[in-house]
């Protein structure tokens, strides 16, 4: 059946049928023997492993194929995420805002597999980059470090720190993979580092795991117990399939375990780890943290920065209020006196996790309805020309209407509802 497909590119059902007729006398054995003629892959076989262009198509009611309406799709995905998040936030949960997160990137043999394009490793690196940026955007007071697993050994790529750029640079320089993967080694290493951090910080590990097994020097269960005891929250995102030990690890330590379906799903899962997780009950007791709010240096001040040991003009850096040393970036920890240095907008930005904007209700626009014809945010008309998607959202508090774009902008970036804010200013 397969051997007769050689008749050219115009392969279709009729050519198989004719082929079958030709082979009718020959018995089944011979029929199957023909399959072994070692050709290069035919188009229909190749498609199995190739990019799936058809997935971007969708069938509408009349049976026509249309490209998927990306705007609506993106919005519905976003809304799902938002609702999920706000459901958790409905009961006011204390959040861990000061996070110490180690990202573990598995660079074992399995990371070179090509089922993600161009390879798992490249996809992981790309998404990790986006994640680190997003993470610092959402958690300005937090710290990230990178660890890789390769040849059965885990290796710390970067120290735990507050600057996204240096982390990303270190990651991109180190992308090659080989050997086995070892969960235990990675956890032991991180356990060693995270044990030193102050008690108010939330210790977290996020493992991006390509491999399907782990070659450990000892009993990994003991290490899991150790992590549990030290309150390290371990989360795993798998790239291939569900592995029992990862699931066990996440269940034990209170993390989440997910497996990605494809690249976009992977990114989505990864970004779910950006907002701060609920605080662990033991830390619920309030405790005070000493912080410094450094000033930007004066224009004419030339000093040596403590992080890069380079001469910089004062305007590029900040001066630690306690020891007057120059640092390049915020937030960070002062190299000299160990004070946590932040800027006030950082603190303010972290604040929104505690008081999120309520999710907006989805409403359909009724014709003849008075007012609310335009989006309160951008003043664009809400009535769409193609009349197909006159769906929009409304703030449950101030009853102002918004378009989808503004909805996303308000919840993701602004964290304030313009309607509610303006009402407040009127009343005051």
């Amino acid at each position, binding site marked *: 059946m*397969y051997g007769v497909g050689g008749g050219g590119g115009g392969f279709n059902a009729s050519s198989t049928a004719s082929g079958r007729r030709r082979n009718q006398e020959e018995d089944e054995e011979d029929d199957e023997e023909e*399959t072994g003629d070692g050709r290069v892959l035919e188009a229909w076989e190749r498609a*199995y492993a190739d990019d799936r262009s058809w997935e971007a198509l969708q069938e509408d009611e009349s049976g026509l194929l249309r490209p998927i309406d990306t705007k609506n799709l993106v919005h519905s995905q976003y809304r799902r995420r938002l609702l999920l998040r706000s459901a958790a936030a409905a009961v006011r949960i204390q959040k861990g805002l000061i996070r110490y997160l180690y990202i573990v990137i598995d660079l074992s043999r399995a990371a070179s597999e090509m089922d993600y394009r161009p390879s798992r490793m490249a996809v992981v690196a790309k998404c990790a980059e986006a994640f680190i940026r997003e993470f610092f955007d959402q958690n300005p007071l937090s710290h990230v470090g990178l660890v890789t697993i390769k040849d059965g050994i885990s290796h710390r790529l970067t120290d735990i720190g507050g600057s996204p750029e240096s982390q990303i640079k270190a990651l991109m320089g180190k992308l090659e993979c080989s050997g086995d993967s070892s969960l235990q080694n990675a956890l032991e290493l991180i356990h060693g580092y995270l044990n030193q951090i102050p008690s108010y910080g939330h210790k977290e590990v996020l493992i991006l795991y390509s491999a399907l097994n782990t070659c450990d020097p000892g009993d990994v269960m003991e290490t899991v117990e150790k992590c549990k005891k030290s309150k390290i929250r371990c989360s795993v995102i798998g790239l291939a399939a569900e*592995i*029992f030990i990862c699931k066990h690890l996440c269940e034990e330590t209170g993390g989440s375990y997910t497996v990605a379906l494809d690249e976009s799903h992977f990114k989505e899962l990864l970004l779910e780890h950006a907002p701060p997780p609920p605080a662990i009950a033991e830390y619920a007791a309030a405790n005070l943290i000493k912080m410094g709010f450094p000033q930007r240096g004066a224009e004419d001040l030339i000093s040596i920065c403590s992080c890069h040991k380079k001469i910089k003009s004062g305007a590029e850096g900040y001066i630690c209020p306690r020891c007057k040393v120059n640092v390049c970036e915020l937030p960070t920890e002062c190299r000299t006196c160990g004070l946590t240095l932040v800027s006030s907008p950082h603190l303010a930005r972290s604040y929104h996790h505690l008081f999120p904007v309520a999710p907006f209700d989805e409403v359909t626009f009724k014709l003849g309805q008075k007012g609310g014809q335009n989006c309160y945010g951008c003043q664009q008309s809400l009535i769409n020309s193609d009349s197909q998607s006159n769906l929009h959202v409304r703030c449950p508090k101030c009853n102002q209407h918004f378009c989808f774009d503004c909805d996303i902008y308000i919840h993701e970036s602004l964290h304030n509802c313009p309607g509610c804010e303006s009402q407040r200013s009127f009343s005051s």
Partner: protein
Amino acid sequence: MWFDLDGLPVCFPYDAIYPEQHEYMGELKRALDARGHALLEMPTGTGKTAALISLITSYALANPSRPLRLFYCTRTVHEMEKTLAELRLLFSHLPPADACRLLALGLSSRKNLCVHPQVSASGAVDTGCRRLTASWVCEKAAYDRESATPLCDYFETFDAAARKGDLALYIQPGVYTLADLRSLGRERRICPYFLARHMVKHANVVVYSYQYLLDPRVASIVSSEMQKDCVVVFDEVHNIDNVCIEALSVSIRKQTIQGAKGNLRHISQQIDRFKATDASRLNAEYRRLVDGLAQRGNLPISDAWLANLALPDDILKEAVPGNIRKAEHFLTVLWRLVRNLDERVDTENVVNERPVSFATSIYSLAGIETTTLRFLYDRLQSLLLTLEITDTDEFMHIQKICDFATLIGTYKRGFSIIIEPYDDRMPDIRDPVIQLSCHDASLAIQPVFNRFQTVVITSGTLSPIDLYPRLLNFNPVISRSFTMSLTRDCICPMVLTRGSDQLPVSTKFDMRSDPGVVRNYGRLLLEMASAVPDGIVCFFVSYSYMDGIVSSWNDMGILQEIMQHKLVFIETPDVVETTLALDNYRKACDCGRGAVFFSVARGKVVEGIDFNRHYGRLVIMFGVPFQYTLSKLEYLRETSQIQEGDFLTFDALRQAAQCVGRVIRSKADYGMMIFADKRYSRHDKRSKLPGWIRSHLHDAHLNLSTDMALHTAREFLRRMAQPYDKAGSSGQTEENLQDKARDAMEM
């Protein structure tokens, strides 16, 4: 919840019921109404047990004229405990007035129930128990109290209570698992084994191993008290015909014969001793035998050894032939028989004979008549009792020989005797064996069907369901196969016909040693090992094939590559080794190293060991596990009109389905199954798979090559790793059912 099933109020101990359970109950009710047998196939993990017991209990409660008498036969002790747990849950949902009248208990061997501190700790519980509880031991202790004969206190309490007839005070209505019985025994200081055995007569539900009903040697002790209106359920008995056949098959090796000779010497010494000290006992026995076997009932019940085989009634009424009534005469007959077998076993070529000709040759060579042969087993039991022998294990050999003789003497058809000088696996070492193999599964189970009005046979794999009635020779009023309703497609069967080089793969005789096929199978496993997490189980058609292919993989370097991904464990015929391998396999799956288990389709592992959850994410069935047994096939063709090909395919596919079915034990679980042989893609093979596998076998997965299968596997595993709604929509609650019933009424 309570719901109404065709006018019968049914109590179901869960809030929701699967649609297939509802249908299952409906069919079962019809069978009970018709007072006939039923054959029902429903996949594992759909709550068969719960459906069964709740329907039968509710049925009995609704029909006071037919009180609840249920005998539930399971395969393992573990399944027994699970069934009892379900029963407990059910009873807690029944109205208190009904629940407080019902008694359910599990029955197992002395080994599982003994609470005597010394005996239960020792290895041979049976022997230890008999030494303390046999009637002559008790009599002796009662006769002279000074000699301080050791007795079992627990048994004494039981005995005293039994004599007074107030045993019912010891056991309140309720559900008793084995552990409950043991703790009850410790608390009240009464023997749980004898108590349970006694209470079987009064219990409403008895859960025990199906050996107790099928093995005629055990059945007559334990199960003789059952009435006609009992409901008998056989659960997980896809290979019930094999169990029946095994119950009536005997194999005698050289060691058995040597052991039997030793036993005979021992017995003759005992006889001499008794003659000198207590000749009256032997005389009493002689008189009893003159009166005939049927009056054996005057022996105390606790002494019942393994009783008679499935003997037709007329034999029981016959008197024991004169030439074996006297102990010495009987002994000489046994000597002649053992010597004759010893000569027969020393043959150079394979011999295949029918029982009739074998019996004739015994008559001509050893001078033992067929009628005499028939009584040897009973006569031996009687003699051993008379001689007050407690150590049954020691006399196993001579019992086996008598067993053999009795079967030959009793049955003229359905058996064959095969004498083989060499074992298949080690053709150089001489290991002669006489096998009496039974071909007719219906012989052992027939008494069960005749005695009880409703026998329910149920399992996850009974396809094709129309073959069982013919094999077991009965007429079910209901035979049906149910499929599983799932919230997601959690099983993924695939038929792999080609390697990645597009060459067909098969274990057909002319292809199995082809290096291309061996390599393709190896590549398949290797690719899968790199794509599937945790555990993979591989089944091969036979030990010899497995040995061959694993050593070729080793030579090709494939095994070493597999070891990079997963550790490899192999099943061997040795039970201890296999248990160790299984333990380590589980450990490797737990700690994330990943493991592959090589097993044999007809080995021990496939029966009773589950590879659920991460212990088996994938099973690969290499080849079709055909088993050629020429004489049995001939017999089946002659008596049951079953074509050889049909039976072979049925047997092979049933075994294959059993193998792959190991991976999925509940609806929340998921697993893949690969049938790696081009023959599976043919319709005649595929159509014999159970419905629940067939319904998930998509057309696109019928003719895969290795790379396509790999791609499918990856997709499947990713899909299954996604969180899903466990509650699901497949269950129906009480309201749904009521709505449905109303809809049906309106229509």
